[in-house]
């Protein structure tokens, strides 16, 4: 009796797949035509769509103000702001690229660039950028990095803000105990111990064991080892000895010197631990400044660099920036670039980064007084300006890179923390996933 029904289902899905195949190839060819459009009339009335990848009560008003300023300067261009909630932003971009319905301009995290470029979603900005009079002002390292990570080494995003992972600590607690704020890893582990006072509900440190923890964990591991290469001759450095050694010490902190809930901590739980006065140190980036300011007194929180390696060097992950990208489907590339350039101008970058509390990439802004008066930004400069600082590059170009962190590393971290897996097993699994992805990539592109 159900056979008829199944036949219908089968037939429909066949038809559907044919339709889909037809659809996508069709719109693909029309896309080509779009990008090769004739010269734009500079005074033509134009509407651009701009996507913000981390919208919310804090950042949305900043973008709206910048857009207002831009529209005043360019009365013929209207900009429509669309704010995406951070947790769904990547999925929304993914769907829009798959359906070829992208915005004109968007805020795009640097780690997404290689993937978006491979999917041919973005417009190369090199020719525009080269003609731009402020191009020399934008952090050269960051621009070079953006070109290096994409397959064709073109410029697909102009970074407008830079971030850095640091430790937020409670200087008042350290003063109270008369102990030193850590500068080396040994001091860090000692401090985590000394600051723990379970009777008074105080913990030395808190681990982000839940969603997003993998990205932070990786930065800590490399900060400890000072390893410069992520992949060497097809072998990943993830499971080298130093990393094993580090994670053993690091995860030993769990429950001894950290809250028990750390194992499923996401961002908000981790920050709540620090902001409620339950933990002395937390690793995040300078961007959470605003949240601590809201909850704590100025003398109760301070940003310090991640501890130096055994031979005294700071380490930072390359590509910790967010940039403005123009999407290939735009019908108004000139206007889109105008917006991208405006958002990267001295005034815009200054406004955005001052409000958010992150590092501008435009060198003209760096001399402004607010930058000098922000201790957490100065902390970041201490790391970035140090000539000795090691910059390592994660393989953002591997399509599986992000999903390995999400689906292998995050659960793996929890498995180690709950004693179901050893550190070695965990790192080997992680390394193997990266190596497999690299092999697949090599086979495909370097044949």
């Amino acid at each position, binding site marked *: *009796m*159900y056979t*008829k*029904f199944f036949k*219908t*289902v089968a037939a429909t899905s066949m038809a*559907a797949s044919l339709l*889909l195949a037809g*659809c*996508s190839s069709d719109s693909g060819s029309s896309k080509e035509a779009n990008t090769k459009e004739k010269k734009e009339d500079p005074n033509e009335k134009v509407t651009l*769509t701009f996507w913000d990848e*981390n*919208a*919310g*009560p*804090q*950042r*949305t*008003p900043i973008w709206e103000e910048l857009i207002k300023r831009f529209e005043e300067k360019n009365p013929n261009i209207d900009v*429509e*702001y*669309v*704010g*995406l*909630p*951070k*947790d*769904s932003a990547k*999925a*929304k971009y993914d*769907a*829009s690229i*798959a*359906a070829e*319905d992208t*915005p004109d301009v968007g805020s795009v995290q640097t780690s997404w660039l290689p993937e978006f470029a491979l999917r041919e979603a973005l417009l190369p900005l090199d020719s525009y950028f080269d003609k731009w009079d402020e191009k020399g002002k934008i952090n050269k390292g960051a621009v070079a990095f953006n070109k290096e990570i994409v397959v064709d080494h073109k410029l697909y995003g102009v970074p407008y803000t830079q971030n850095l992972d640091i430790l937020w600590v409670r200087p008042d607690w350290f003063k109270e105990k008369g102990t030193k704020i850590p500068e080396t890893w040994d001091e860090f582990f000692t401090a985590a111990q000394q600051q723990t006072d379970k009777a008074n509900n105080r913990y030395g440190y808190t681990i982000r064991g839940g969603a*997003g923890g993998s990205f932070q964990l990786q930065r800590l591991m490399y900060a400890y080892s000072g390893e410069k290469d992520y992949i060497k001759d097809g072998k990943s450095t993830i499971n080298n000895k130093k990393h094993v050694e580090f994670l053993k010490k690091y995860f030993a902190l769990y429950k001894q010197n950290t809250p028990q809930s750390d194992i499923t901590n996401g*961002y*908000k739980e981790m*920050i*709540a631990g620090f*902001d*409620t*006065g339950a933990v002395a140190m937390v690793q995040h980036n300078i*961007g*959470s400044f*605003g*949240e601590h300011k*809201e*909850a704590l007194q100025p003398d109760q929180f301070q940003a310090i660099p991640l501890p130096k390696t055994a031979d005294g060097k700071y380490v930072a992950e390359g590509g910790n920036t967010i940039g403005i990208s123009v999407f290939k489907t735009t019908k108004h590339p000139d206007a889109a670039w105008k917006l991208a350039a405006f958002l990267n101008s001295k005034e815009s970058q200054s406004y955005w980064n001052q409000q*958010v509390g992150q590092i501008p990439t435009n060198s003209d802004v760096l001399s402004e007084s607010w930058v000098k008066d922000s201790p957490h930004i100065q902390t970041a400069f201490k790391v970035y300006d140090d000539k000795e600082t090691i910059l390592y590059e994660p393989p953002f170009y591997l399509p599986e890179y992000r999903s390995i962190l999400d689906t292998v590393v995050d659960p793996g971290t929890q498995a180690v923390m709950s004693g179901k897996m050893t550190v070695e097993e965990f790192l080997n699994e992680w390394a193997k996933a990266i190596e497999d992805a690299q092999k697949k990539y090599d086979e495909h592109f370097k044949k």
Partner: protein
Amino acid sequence: MIKTKKRVDRLLTFNLPLLVMLIFTLFPLYWTINTAFKHEGDIIKRPLGYVPASPTIDNFVTAWTNVGFSTYFKNSLLVGVCTVFIVLILSTLSGYALSRYKFKGKRAFLLMLLCTQFIPRSMLIIPLFIIFKFLGLISNPLSLIITYAAVEIPFTTVLMNGFISNVPRELEEAAMVDGCNKLQAIRYVIFPLLVPGIVATSVFTFIYTWNEFLIALMLTNQQGKFTLPVGLSYMMGEFNINYGALAAGSVIALIPAVILFAYAQKHLVNGMGGAVKG
């Protein structure tokens, strides 16, 4: 003696369980309201305040104005009401067919309805986007209304089937004898008797549309067209957590639902009985 025993009995089998149930149900709600009236700093301060120390409505103002909440609220209402309208008409028709006729393919139709519920919604997003892009309906409330209706119809059809089965056939036949055609009979005889069922179906549908997040986010590319759940999600991201405003937003989002319940409570209960008795 017997009286006390009865009283103890009533206490143990009725008063106490009812009290436990109410506490379990209402405490989380109370806590949200409590949070909504606190200053941001007080929310995470220990010891916890079970009553806001210095109540403030700042959070409500922030939620309502800063993030464009009022627009999302209106959009949600529009989408909700239209979806309810479509769902009611279509599911009454198909529910009627199921309840009153024997026809070939009836089971296949029922099974088809069930099958649509087997697939996680997140898997349907991209093809849905492609359909609505093809129809030129991206960022148009219609795309949400159509999708929600399609998703809800299977369930509401089954519901309506139950309600209609409860209306005695004879009433309808009498109307037909009086010269009504089928549609008129439904319109003038069945429909009025279905009021409770209609209320129940409407509440089901409305609550679904009111809370749906993923499809609403994915099929909309214009800030001014987002619905309430998208607006709420803005307050939960990294760097953007604002518990007070989030709680206040939740309370605002709850108001229509609570009003709806208070109003529909009687019908809802009667209505559902009809539907599921079969």
